[in-house]
């Protein structure tokens, strides 16, 4: 297949309006599967978390997991949705060995939550309201391993191997309405929405929402219409978008590709595409079946779910402080400006700073460490901030050592480096590297006297009352003590020795 023609992004948004839709699948972190009591542990030996129900063996019957329904309702409430008072599961029929039953149990036209919204804050503070069409319950599929062929991918494979441990794990699919009028910011809006949704679901404690482990997965729907025409274009659905950055890149790529197709006078094919992480492009999957081809019908083995108003209100009462409420509280408590708060959020540092504060550190110090020094270290290592091998508690200890005067800032950075290098707890790094501040006045006075003697003109100025000149002497003493002196104490001693 020939490579698609890509139109320059700026040119695309000059001439086309993007229509964006996002479908996010979230794997719930329940103890057991949606319809049976099998465990849901990640990484178990293949086919050891399966039973007659999730293997679709004859005579087995599914029973709905109450906690999964509660999680679905809580997600719906947090997304400002209406909770359906009555609804059924349906069978989505298809032939593919990732579901041993030959159908997936899902909700079709009676989703448990409908008509919500999520307000999403972009990096510059602009708020975009994303309308939620529905959130429904379904079950995850098994994992396929394609064997043979050159690439290990499905094409050219000789046979496939199936592990059904994941088959039947509860999934919530959250579908947005079409998000209009995002223009050039469509990629950014997509990313910000998935980020906000992730933070929201994490705060509910119903999923670990790890995109890298597949417990949160995103499909990007995109179409273009000629600028201002209001004519809906044909959409593509891009799957396999497994990081926040990929969400943004997938939208950008599809916009450029659609424009190339439309500019050539061709029709966009309605199809599933797969995002390629390495090239930030998408490749064609299958031509999408119409929903009629799935021959949905009500699941005869399950009775309807009818959440009472009392139950829904009880669950509403269990909602924790939601991310936007928490951000507002933290901003107030720490006295942050809008811009300062945004920097924290954009650096993905808010939770880390809050945990460091909880471990006893002042918010200003905690903020400055995470946003500057540790962010730099994360960048250098090419990892996200919370993947750095230092815990908020460890950082809080380093900050405590600085506050008590046992470390100065320079030494503190060396202690943090030691922790990042795996040398142990902060106190162990201090001991092993011999990093404690020189607090023996005797040793410091000797160094101060030596430095004053070496720069008599400066010493004269200080004696004459120009205390500001002491900086040069402090510098010399710090150099002489290899940075292991408390600069504040050195300054005091200089002034004392000069009688100023």
């Amino acid at each position, binding site marked *: 297949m020939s490579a698609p023609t890509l139109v320059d992004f700026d040119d695309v948004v000059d001439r086309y309006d993007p229509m964006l839709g996002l479908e996010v699948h979230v794997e719930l972190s329940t103890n057991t599967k949606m319809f049976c009591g*099998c465990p849901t542990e990640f990484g178990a030996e293949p086919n050891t978390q399966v*039973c007659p129900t999730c293997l679709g063996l004859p005579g087995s019957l599914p029973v709905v997991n109450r906690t999964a329904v509660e999680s679905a309702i809580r997600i719906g409430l947090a997304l400002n949705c209406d909770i359906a008072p009555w609804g059924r599961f349906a069978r989505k029929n298809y032939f593919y060995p990732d579901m041993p039953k030959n159908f997936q149990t899902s909700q079709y036209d009676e989703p448990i939550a409908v008509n919500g919204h999520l307000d999403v804050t972009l990096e510059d503070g602009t708020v975009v309201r994303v309308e939620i069409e529905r959130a429904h319950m379904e079950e995850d599929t098994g994992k396929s391993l394609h064997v043979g062929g050159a690439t290990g991918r499905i094409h050219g494979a000789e046979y496939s*191997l199936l592990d059904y441990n994941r088959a039947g794990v509860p999934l919530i699919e959250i579908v947005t309405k079409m998000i209009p009028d995002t223009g050039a910011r469509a990629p950014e809006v997509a990313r910000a929405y998935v980020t906000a949704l992730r933070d929201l679901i994490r705060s509910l404690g119903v999923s670990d929402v790890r995109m890298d482990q597949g417990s949160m997965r995103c499909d990007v729907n995109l179409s273009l219409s000629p600028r201002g025409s209001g004519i809906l274009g044909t959409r593509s659905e891009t799957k396999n978008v497994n990081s926040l950055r990929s969400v943004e890149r997938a939208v950008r790529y599809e916009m450029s590709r659609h424009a190339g197709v439309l500019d050539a006078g061709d029709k966009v094919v309605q199809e599933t595409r797969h995002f390629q992480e390495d090239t930030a492009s998408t490749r064609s999957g299958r031509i999408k079946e119409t929903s009629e081809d799935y021959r949905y019908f009500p699941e005869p083995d399950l009775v*309807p779910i009818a959440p009472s108003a009392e139950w829904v209100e009880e669950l509403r009462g269990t909602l924790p402080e939601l991310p936007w409420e928490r951000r507002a509280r933290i901003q107030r408590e720490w006295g942050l400006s809008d811009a300062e708060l945004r920097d924290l959020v954009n650096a993905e540092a808010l939770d880390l700073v809050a945990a460091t504060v909880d471990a006893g550190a002042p918010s200003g110090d905690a903020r400055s460490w995470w946003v500057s020094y540790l962010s730099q270290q994360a960048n250098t290592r090419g990892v996200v901030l919370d993947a750095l091998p230092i815990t908020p508690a460890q950082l809080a200890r380093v900050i405590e050592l600085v506050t008590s005067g046992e470390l100065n800032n320079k030494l503190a950075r060396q202690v943090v480096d030691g922790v990042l290098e795996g040398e142990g707890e902060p106190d162990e790094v201090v001991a092993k590297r011999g990093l404690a501040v020189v607090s023996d006045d005797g040793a410091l006075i000797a160094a101060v006297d030596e430095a004053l003697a070496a720069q008599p003109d400066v010493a004269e100025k200080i004696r004459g009352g120009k205390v500001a000149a002491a900086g040069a002497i402090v510098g010399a003493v710090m150099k002489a003590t290899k940075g292991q002196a408390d600069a504040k104490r050195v300054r005091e001693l200089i002034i004392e020795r000069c009688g100023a």
Partner: protein
Amino acid sequence: MSPDSPSSGGAITRDEVAHLARLARLAVTDDELGVFAGQLDVILGAVARVGEVAADDIPPTSHSVPLENVFRPDERRPSLTQEQALSGAPAAEGGRFRVPQILGEEQ
């Protein structure tokens, strides 16, 4: 739930039978297409008679037993062992079910 029956008002066509057979991965011969179209027509006609008595004020029956909200607690039950799970499989490899080549039908 939107009805899944073919468009009402016309006899089921051979093409529709062929389409359904493909979705169900059934090999149906040319002769059988005609036979099944006729048989399916009879079945659909019989089911359609229900519509003649179902008035607007009668809600569709979703289940033969009038039950709602049957749940189980989120508590683990013993799973099968890997050996038990694979014991009925025609082929297995490395603890997994082995299935023939899948022809470009990714879900």
